[in-house]
């Protein structure tokens, strides 16, 4: 299978993520109310609305790298809070990894996502188990890598990544947070799903949907 990610699919990804954020806005904010400050849904809605205004405009960047970079910049400059720099860094690093590749085959997509997630994790100084979005994103990258290693192709690989992200998200529930606002709660942070892990899962699912 030598499928590759098209510019239209990238745009569809962003649109699907925006839609998911809209649909689950209240839920994300509720998760954040429990162990944070009740704004995660609002933050991402504001950011993805700004991103889509850019994507839907006439001068939408026409290469993967330039589009992803513009998305990252837009998120950094509109979201604020923790998730702004984190998702912003994800897209900026993904953009850098995409470079001037003409086509984004499974390998390239993997490289892009891995760079994005590594950038995000190092921006947040977070590791798996800290109860953050990294807990959803790192397993997703790993699942995609495994799939690519098996030669499964992009749609199947991304589907596996989405499943892994959701599992990672669920796994945050029992954890005591070590990073972000939830860490201030100490033991009281256990028993709640991390809002960032929830939104990150939507990001991976949106990508899987876009290339399905």
């Amino acid at each position, binding site marked *: 299978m030598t499928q590759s990610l098209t510019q239209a699919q990238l745009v569809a990804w962003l649109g699907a993520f925006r839609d998911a954020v809209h649909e689950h806005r209240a839920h994300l*904010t509720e998760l954040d*109310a*429990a*162990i*944070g*400050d*009740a*704004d995660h849904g*609002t*933050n991402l809605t*504001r950011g993805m609305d700004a991103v889509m205004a850019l994507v839907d405009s006439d001068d939408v960047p026409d290469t993967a790298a330039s589009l992803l970079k513009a998305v990252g910049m837009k998120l*950094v*400059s*509109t*979201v*604020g*809070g*923790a*998730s*702004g*720099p*984190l998702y*912003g860094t994800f897209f900026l690093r993904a953009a850098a990894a995409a470079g001037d590749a003409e086509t984004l085959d499974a390998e390239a997509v993997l490289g892009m996502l891995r760079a994005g997630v590594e950038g995000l994790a190092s*921006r*947040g100084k977070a590791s798996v188990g800290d109860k953050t979005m990294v807990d959803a994103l790192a397993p997703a990258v790993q699942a995609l890598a495994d799939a690519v290693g098996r030669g499964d192709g992009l749609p199947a690989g991304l589907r596996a990544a989405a499943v892994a992200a959701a599992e990672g998200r669920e796994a945050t529930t029992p954890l005591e947070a*070590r*990073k*972000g*606002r939830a*860490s*201030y*709660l*100490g033991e*009281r942070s256990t028993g709640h799903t991390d809002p960032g892990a929830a939104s990150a899962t939507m990001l991976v699912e949106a990508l899987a949907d876009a290339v399905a």
Partner: protein
Amino acid sequence: MLREPVVKKLINDPADVLAESLRGVEAAHPELRVDHEHRIVYRARAKSDGKVALISGGGSGHEPLHGGFVGPGMLDAACAGEVFTSPTPDQMVEATTVVDRGAGVLHIVKNYTGDVMNFEMAGEMAAADGGVDVRTVVTRDDVAVEDSTYTAGRRGVGVTVLLEKIVGAAAEEGQDLDAVESLAQRVSDGGRSMGIALTSCTVPSAGRPTFDLPEDEIEVGVGIHGEPGRHREALTGASEIARQLVDPVLADHDFTTGPTIALLNGMGGTPLIELYLMYGEVTRLLASAGVEVARCLVGNYITSLDMAGASLTLLAADEEMVRLWDAPVSTPGLRWGA
């Protein structure tokens, strides 16, 4: 024109709260200048050349912090984020460029992941652009949070107000960037805070209280974002609550070796009559612990929207800090000697 969903606040669309509030700040304070595009509050009359500039910023909902502390003797600019959401790097870069008088800029950052990362990115961007010498001080005074290298560390709360005042005075009198930076670090290091909440607050865009709290319980160890505290306890009298503020602060740092500056801060929904009552209780405990309060503030200075509650901040000061504390300051939120 009814509002949907109904949030019982003096607002229009929850999405417009910050932008519209800044309109009011502009109208009320001719001594300030508001950049609405970047959501930055500046002094109307910039500092003179050769002086270090101070920038702070953070999520909104903590008023008067930070915009209310812009003015002679305190900040040069404040970047306002959405409610409880750190501002973005481009705001900080813009403010940094505008306020620099050639002597460098100090970024005052409260230790929250979002604030730290956004200021960090701003620093990287400013450095990449070249030119401005930017230093950063991160406040982390909240003793409710256990400190550890594996975690996000302590939150920055009340000491930020004291730092902006003291370091602002140092910058105003012409101390250079190295001196300003090291003073800021000393103030940050000497501050400890503890907060409790009687109620949650309501974030406008969320529309309902962030947490529910039974009538007979309080949250102990809260920050300033309506996040729940470390644990809940039964509601007791003010004298007992004062103990819950004072004891952990004194346990964490020695305040008996020099003058102390105290801030008994309201969370936004607590009336002054209660804050003064609490301060009476607090001073009694401090006196019996041998702490000499040289200066104090009682009031709403770093708030959490409409939350009812209070926090105590103590700063182990020195003569120099007390002198700078007494120096003139002229901002909407703090004003004396000018």
